[in-house]
């Protein structure tokens, strides 16, 4: 059953990508519909598998499928193996489910784009690559998917390549991801030298006995890979620029699925993290810094998509934090990943709907009072909003609460920072809500907002429902029990602050953030142009906390200096050595060349002189 259906899940969207991208213009008319149907078919397969395995005992739920031997070289034997277990089953549902909804939405959103077919081809390629990533049974197949989603992300960020900003953003994302990919590929090499295999089974089984230093290095390299893909500090700067891509892309790739691949990698490699406390601490530090970093950026942006991008960065920080907390947090990392996938995709698509209505204007200062003009978008967005700030009962409340709780048990200051982040989240999301749907109208002339067609609002409604109801996964601690065979049993509750106190505290902090936003944004008129005389914290936050400047100063500029110096060395050192010899010979020859003056008689004289010298020499030698 599993071995028959599982390859189909990947093959269907891959087929769609092949048909649309190779088929060319003749698929223009029906291609997008085919490309929408295939992920839905994939989703049906995933659902069938999920229901099928749900009825089976725990140990039967995890099955690996050997497709073929990918390559063999010496001791290295890599199979194209797929692994279906509890962890990947949830990812399968998220990717194909949210992916299908976003495909449907794109039918409406991209309806008037003349390169629609290509867009859908890339989207299918992305879905296939992402599914490969989460279904891989070893790190090399995972790497294949990892690079595949990177490629799809590059193609889709730069989809409107006629805009120089989009082309530059795509390049930036690609280059920054290379840094992370270097970490991942080194980690894979290290896996092979340490364990003689790259399969998850072998690595996770051997991690306990492999020596802490090696595991620390492995964990740090994996973290570097995760940082690149999941936009964690210090490789975070590309995500904000990635918003240049079409909004469905931002929703699917840069919110719901691809950027969470780093979290998946961390959870998948849980045994390595468990064996390396230093690496685990590094994950916690990176995650905590990122969750605050992203949240602070979100507070100062006027571009609705960039606020959501900062928010995504911050929420992935929460997931990484949970992953860094060890067995206590893995299940919650995945739980938050799933609920975040729902509500953030919902809000990105809602933002797309708003942009659609406002003639592709992304500046929230030109919005205002849209709740009456677009009621469906408003209501669905509000569900996502309540979920992300952690309004009691909504999905985000359960998932974020659990992470803060777990963080508090790890160390009180991590918990406090996570709690503080939740407050900032409440602030910037409320600010976004107020500036977009409430306050007074600030529409520019000629803009007539209208509700989006039902093909776009339909997915919004489904995602809004999921945003509200996502918390049911926690009922009876289902998700912990379900994931336990993969990521290990969570430890018994240790002493510390009781869970209800943390929840209460979280709700109070969130309420504080909302109230602050209400007093700062909701109570006063919003200027149409961003004020320039702002205090330094706002200026710094608007500059993405100098993310780009830091990169420029510490990486780009030294890199340029280095390449410049190498170029000089090459030009004057290596080339000089090569060309210097002939030049010296030429100059030397230039002196003697003058002897060739064209007069036969002087040649004759030199011949005679030479002959006389030879004769004299012979006479001297033969003197005796």
């Amino acid at each position: 059953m599993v071995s028959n259906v599982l390859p189909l899940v990947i093959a269907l969207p891959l087929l769609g990508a092949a048909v649309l991208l190779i088929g060319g213009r003749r698929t223009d008319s029906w291609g997008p519909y085919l490309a929408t149907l295939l992920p839905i078919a994939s989703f049906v397969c995933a659902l069938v598998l999920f229901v099928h395995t749900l009825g089976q005992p725990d140990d039967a739920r995890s099955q690996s499928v050997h497709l073929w031997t990918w390559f063999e070289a010496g001791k290295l034997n890599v199979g194209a193996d797929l692994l279906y277990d509890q962890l990947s089953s949830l990812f399968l549902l998220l990717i194909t489910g949210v992916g299908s909804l976003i495909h449907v939405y794109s039918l409406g959103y991209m309806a008037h784009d003349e390169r629609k077919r290509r867009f859908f081809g890339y989207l299918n390629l992305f879905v296939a690559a992402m599914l490969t990533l989460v279904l891989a049974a070893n790190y090399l197949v995972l790497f294949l998917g990892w690079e595949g989603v990177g490629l799809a992300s590059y193609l889709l960020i730069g989809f409107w390549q006629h805009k120089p900003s989009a082309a530059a953003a795509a390049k930036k994302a690609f280059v920054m991801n290379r840094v992370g990919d270097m970490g991942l590929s080194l980690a894979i090499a290290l896996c092979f030298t340490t364990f003689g295999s790259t399969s998850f089974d072998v690595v996770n089984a051997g991690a306990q006995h492999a020596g802490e230093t090696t595991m620390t290095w492995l964990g740090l390299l994996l973290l570097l890979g995760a940082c690149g893909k999941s936009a964690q500090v210090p490789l975070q700067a590309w995500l904000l620029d990635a918003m240049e891509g079409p909004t469905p892309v931002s929703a699917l790739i840069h919110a719901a699925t691809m950027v969470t691949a780093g979290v998946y990698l961390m959870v998948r490699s849980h045994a390595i993290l468990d064996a390396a406390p230093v690496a685990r601490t590094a994950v916690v530090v990176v995650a905590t810094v990122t969750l605050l970093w992203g949240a602070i950026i979100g507070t100062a942006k006027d571009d609705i998509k960039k606020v959501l991008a900062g928010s995504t960065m911050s929420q992935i920080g929460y997931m990484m934090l949970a992953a860094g907390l060890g067995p206590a947090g893995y299940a919650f990392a995945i739980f938050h990943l799933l609920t975040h996938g729902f509500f953030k995709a919902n809000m990105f698509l809602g933002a797309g709907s708003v942009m659609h209505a406002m003639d592709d204007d992304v500046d929230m200062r030109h919005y205002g009072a849209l709740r009456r003009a677009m009621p469906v978008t408003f209501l669905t967005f509000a569900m996502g909003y309540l979920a992300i700030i952690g309004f009691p009962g909504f999905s985000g409340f359960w998932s974020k609460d659990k992470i803060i709780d777990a963080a508090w048990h790890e160390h009180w200051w991590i918990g406090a920072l996570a709690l503080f982040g939740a407050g900032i989240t409440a602030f910037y999301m409320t600010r976004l809500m107020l500036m977009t749907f409430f306050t007074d109208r600030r529409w520019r002339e000629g803009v007539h907002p209208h509700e989006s067609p039902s093909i776009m609002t339909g997915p919004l409604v489904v995602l809004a429902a999921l945003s509200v109801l996502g918390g049911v996964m926690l009922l009876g601690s289902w998700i912990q029990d379900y994931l336990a065979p993969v990521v290990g049993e969570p430890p018994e509750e240790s002493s510390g602050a009781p869970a209800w106190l943390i929840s209460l505290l979280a709700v109070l902090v969130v309420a504080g953030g909302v109230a602050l936003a209400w007093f700062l944004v909701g109570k006063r008129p919003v200027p149409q142009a961003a004020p320039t005389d702002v205090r330094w914290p706002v200026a710094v936050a608007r500059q993405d906390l100098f993310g780009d400047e830091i990169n420029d100063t510490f990486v780009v500029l030294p890199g340029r200096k280095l390449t410049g110096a190498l170029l000089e060395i090459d030009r004057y050192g290596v080339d000089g050595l090569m060309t210097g010899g002939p030049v010296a010979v030429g100059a030397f020859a230039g002196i003697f060349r003058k002897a060739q003056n064209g007069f036969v008689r002087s040649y004759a004289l030199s011949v005679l002189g030479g002959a006389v010298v030879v004769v004299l020499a012979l006479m001297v030698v033969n003197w005796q």
Partner: protein
Amino acid sequence: MTDVTPYLIVSAVLFSIGATGVLIRRNAIVVFMCIELMLNAANLSLVSFSNLHGNLEGQVTAFFVMVVAAAEVVIGLAIIMTIFRSRRSASIDDASLLKW
């Protein structure tokens, strides 16, 4: 066995006249004739020593030299004729294009 010294003296004198002619004359024909003088001076030495040693090696070599000289004359005169046709001059100093 005869005394070859007079022959060698004649040969040396002939060679010196030829070499001097090659070095100081500009007319290509004259230079050519001087080269012939040098060749024949060498021939004279060869024949003399052949006689001195009582074998024929030197004489045979002299024949070779004559053959070479004849061939050289054929080619050399042809070159001189061609140069004269294009430049209206038989001066070897005028034909000095082939240089650095």
